[in-house]
């Protein structure tokens, strides 16, 4: 089996498996974030559960981080291998005649998402790790805020219009990445008939997930 994952097809399959995990993660992330629009109290409760539950913190979170790092490291490795396989390249190449822009430029949409993840970690994840693991404060509260602090911190981040613009741009690229990635993942694991059946679901997923995140960012910006 180890030989399989060293083969070109094994690498494709491992990219697809990490992509499936990340696509499920995006769905639950959006579901929880959506609560911040409708019920700050419920959003706080769920955030506190996710932030303090040992299963989420010590089992799912490391798997998530591994999946993210694996997906982009393997993405780079495959891109470099593919560039090497290309040879001299063409003087004239009409890629638009036979494939979509987003399918040919997964590396660029992926790099934009990677840059966004760095910003997102600086905004939310690093402060959270600092509070919980370095300062040892697992209370979910902060002085001056009634109840849990999560909703207040979220809304505060979207006051700055520059950050909102950066998030919106990143989500557009996430949509482009998913527009190819969703069906591509099914094809890579050999599920060609499922890929065809889920084509419309893929289009809906790649539009609705980024649109949901964009809505939440804009909502908090204009309602803080």
């Amino acid at each position: 089996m180890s030989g399989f994952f060293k083969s070109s097809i094994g690498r494709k399959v491992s990219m697809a498996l990490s992509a499936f995990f990340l696509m499920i993660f995006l769905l639950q992330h959006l579901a929880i974030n959506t609560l911040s629009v409708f019920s700050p109290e419920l959003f706080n409760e769920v955030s506190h559960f996710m932030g303090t539950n040992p299963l989420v913190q010590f089992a799912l979170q490391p798997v998530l981080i591994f999946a993210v790092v694996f997906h982009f490291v393997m993405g780079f490795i495959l891109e470099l291998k593919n560039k090497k396989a290309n040879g001299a390249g063409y003087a004239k190449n009409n890629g638009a005649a036979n494939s979509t822009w987003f399918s040919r430029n997964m590396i660029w949409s992926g790099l934009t998402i990677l840059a966004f993840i760095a910003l997102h970690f600086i905004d939310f994840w690093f402060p959270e790790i600092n509070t919980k693991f370095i300062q040892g404060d697992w209370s979910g509260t902060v002085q001056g805020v009634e109840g849990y602090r999560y909703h207040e911190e979220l809304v505060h981040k979207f006051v700055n219009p520059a950050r909102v613009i950066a998030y919106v741009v990143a989500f557009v690229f996430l949509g482009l990445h998913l527009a190819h990635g969703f069906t591509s993942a099914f094809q890579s694991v050999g599920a060609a008939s499922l890929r065809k059946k889920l084509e419309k679901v893929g289009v809906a997923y790649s539009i609705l997930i980024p649109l949901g995140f964009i809505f939440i960012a804009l909502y908090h910006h204009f309602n803080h």
Partner: protein
Amino acid sequence: MNLTLKIWRQKDASSKGQMVDYKISDISEHMSFLEMMDVLNEELISKGEEPVAFDHDCREGICGMCSMYINGEAHGPDRGVTTCQLHMRMFKDGDTITIEPWRAAAFPVIKDLAVDRSAFDRIQHAGGYISVNTSGNTQDANAIPIAKEAADTAMDAATCIGCGACVATCKNSSAMLFVGAKVSQYALLPQGQVEAADRVKNMVAQMDLEGFGNCTNTGACEVECPKGISLDNIARMNRELMKASI
């Protein structure tokens, strides 16, 4: 038709090549692309110049030898055809046509527009066959019941002519449509199932060894393939390799 041709000229495998412009006139729209190239070469020979080297054989669209990248597309702008079946009516008077060889590290240029596609042969040798004893007692293949759909799908995969347009078109120079078709044509039939696991493992290993890239499912190969080989064959190859590896 009067045309300007921009053609890749390269003396031999070790020389550095370049694009060279040629003017050509009085080309009939009924000519095939290769006939137009023949006219150019006759003019070059009459002027004492070196003719443009390009691969061709049957000129009936079934041998897979002609291999030009025309105006940024494998076998040019028409669909479901090889270069010999591409006709000049697809172009307009006054057009500039860019003609390049297949580009892939695994398909090195031999001369001008001719590339070395023996990597495909080596992949075939690695497992693209069935071992049948032909001593005289071989069972008639038609005596084995095969579902119509499986037979048709295997036949569709077997129509691959190994031209390499999939590799030339792919932004990753991946050979997975070719190998997927070759794996599928046997995997779908009872005769091929005995050696299925070794076949897919060996053919994929040889494909990787030859330096072809990884498929990223853009689907460009399926669009440009002169025989319309389906992406389903790549998915089937992936499944076959997973099955063989577990």
